[in-house]
């Protein structure tokens, strides 16, 4: 009954897509309109926290290597930290804007985790390519939450932040357990799937 890794990637892609469209909408309407209804203010931090929680079963069930377990648990921790800090900021339990830096930290650690736990080259298989690309997108994307901490009303930074989630979502949807990438597939990767 345990799903193949590709299904897990697609489910997380859906989570990232939900976050991406919500953050894009927030960037479009601005924080004042977005914050008019309390539940909307909790939407993105709550989703980040839930994604972090769901990374724990991924860590427990997909134990193909120690590196995978460490990467997934590090990712789970920073996502939960960022989600929790954002929830506390939305609720007013935290007030310092510097807590928003936890999102940049989550992006950096998640990107590094994605890069480090992928031991194969970019063109080994599509899975390898997706993890390399996702890692660098997240590390580059960390600039948006970093800058947004100091300029929270910037449309460009908000849209860039949302776009990072949307790009990661697309990458996760393209993930296959064994498939070629740009015509390349290592012979040791196994038989390609449809």
């Amino acid at each position, binding site marked *: 009954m345990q799903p193949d890794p590709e299904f897990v990637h697609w489910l997380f892609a859906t989570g990232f897509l939900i976050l991406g469209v919500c953050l894009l909408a927030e960037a*479009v*309407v601005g924080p004042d*309109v977005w914050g008019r209804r309390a539940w909307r203010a909790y939407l993105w931090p709550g989703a980040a926290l839930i994604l972090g929680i769901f990374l724990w079963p991924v860590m427990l069930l997909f134990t193909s290597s120690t590196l995978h377990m460490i990467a997934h648990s590090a990712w789970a921790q920073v996502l939960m930290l960022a989600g929790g800090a954002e929830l506390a900021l939305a609720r007013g339990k935290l007030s310092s804007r510097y807590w928003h830096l936890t999102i940049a930290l989550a992006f950096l650690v998640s990107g590094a985790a994605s890069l480090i736990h992928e031991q194969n080259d970019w063109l080994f298989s599509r899975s390898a390519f997706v993890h390399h690309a996702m890692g660098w997108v997240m590390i580059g994307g960390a600039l948006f939450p970093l800058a947004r901490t100091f300029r929270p009303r910037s449309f460009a930074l908000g849209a860039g932040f949302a776009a990072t989630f949307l790009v990661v979502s697309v990458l996760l949807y393209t993930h296959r357990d064994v498939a070629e990438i740009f015509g390349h597939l290592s012979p040791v990767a196994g038989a390609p799937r449809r």
Partner: protein
Amino acid sequence: MAGATPGSLMRAEPSTLETPRARSSIRARAISGIGPLTVLAGVLWAFAQPYRVTILHPRGQGFWWLAVEPPLLVILVGVLFGLVLAPGLLEDLQEEDR
């Protein structure tokens, strides 16, 4: 203001008043477009890779292939955004204009 005629003042006035409204209208259109565009992306994907929509040919498919169908998930996200999030946002944008 020495060279300004009453006519030119009248022409200038509405533009300054309309700017926030025009901006709000662009924002409203953008919000209205996010859901349908997401649905469109899912539909195009379903046509491009129909084998990913296993509900069309469910025989012999395992549980996960039937439960997780990426193009349908994308469509679902678009529909949920359009039905749950967009109406409230458009209402709040209108209220901001008043």
